């Protein structure tokens, strides 16, 4: 089996360059090596200045999102053998400002996430002594898919609406809002509505569906957004027709 592959890695050093350049590195590969392993080889053996984020290397921390041969993927979940004979082009995640090499600025998402209030909201909390909130498997099924989000941002990287309009709330934020809206323990759907049902929220989405394709954890943010559009729209109509009756 071929045991080497060329990786073309996007480099951006703001003190030196005005825009990113691709730099080629030849790395060894085995059947098990992921793009992340290749990057770590480069950093350890070839060029210690290469900058990239990573942590768990097993697809749960969400740190190593990048653009590999044009597709948004996790570096740890993408295997070099699949790109033979190469070269593999590794670039930072799209649609985010690039700070350096493969490191992007995520402050936009970090600011948006708390606005959807991604926590259980209740009128009154059960006293701890009364025990747990009980939830049937069917109730958990309602939101379980949306709870799998690891905040890797690949969905934002894939979404053309976010690319064109960074004011868009975005797939992960809306899916996380839905995760709580659909949780039987939560009573806060009305509190999330101003943000989720804003023009820059769910309504800016045109169901391209790329977010769901890109998601490594099967969250289906496109489905979450579609479902929310129907819920929010019917709610708006109810409020229009029965201003007092609807909650």
């Amino acid at each position, binding site marked *: 089996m071929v045991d080497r592959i060329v990786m073309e890695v996007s480099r951006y050093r*703001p003190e030196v360059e005005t825009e990113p350049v691709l730099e080629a590195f030849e790395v060894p590969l085995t059947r098990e090596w992921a793009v992340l392993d290749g990057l770590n080889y480069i950093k350890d053996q070839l060029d210690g200045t290469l900058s990239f984020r990573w942590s768990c290397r097993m697809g749960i921390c969400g740190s190593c999102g990048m653009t590999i041969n044009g597709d948004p993927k996790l570096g740890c979940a993408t295997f070099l053998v699949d790109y033979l004979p190469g070269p593999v082009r590794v670039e930072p995640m799209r649609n985010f400002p*690039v*700070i350096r090499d493969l490191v992007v*600025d995520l*402050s936009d998402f970090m600011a948006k996430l708390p606005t959807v209030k991604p926590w259980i909201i209740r009128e009154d909390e059960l006293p701890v002594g009364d025990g747990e909130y009980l939830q049937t498997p069917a109730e958990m099924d309602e939101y379980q898919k949306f709870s799998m989000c690891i905040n890797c941002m690949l969905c934002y990287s894939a979404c053309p609406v976010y690319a064109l309009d960074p004011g868009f709330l975005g797939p992960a934020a809306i899916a996380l809002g839905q995760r709580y809206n659909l949780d039987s323990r939560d009573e806060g759907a009305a509190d999330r509505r101003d943000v989720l049902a804003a023009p820059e929220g769910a309504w800016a989405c045109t169901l391209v569906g*790329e977010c769901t394709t890109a998601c490594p954890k099967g969250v*289906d943010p496109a*489905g979450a957004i*579609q479902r929310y559009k129907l819920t929010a729209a019917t709610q708006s109509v109810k409020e229009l027709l029965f201003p007092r009756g609807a909650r």
Partner: protein
Amino acid sequence: MTTPVRAYRHPIPRTWWARRRSYRLFMLREISCVFVAWFVVYVLLLVHAIGSGSDSYDQFLDFSANPLVVALNVVTLIFILLHAVTWFGSAPRAIVVHLRGRRVPESAVLAGHYAAWLVVSAIVAWLVLS
């Protein structure tokens, strides 16, 4: 943290929608709405012709048989089918129904849409052809 001043922002190319197969398919689906609008106009022309007398109707039939018009309508048929198939395909994710405490499976919602399509088409065809 605030975005560093020298962070690089990729410009979005004008033809961003042509650069990935999935974006191209998305754009085709969106463009189908133009053919929907065209056919609404065509139907209105047909109804107007019917309302204006038998001669107008014959003129409309001649118009509709013009090769350019036929070609346009063949393309329209393709796009409207694309619209219908993608529309029904996305409905199960938006329409979540619970019956007797259980969630209706997505396949059932999808099948329901196709069944409705069949029924409506049959009714319209019968109305027109009988």
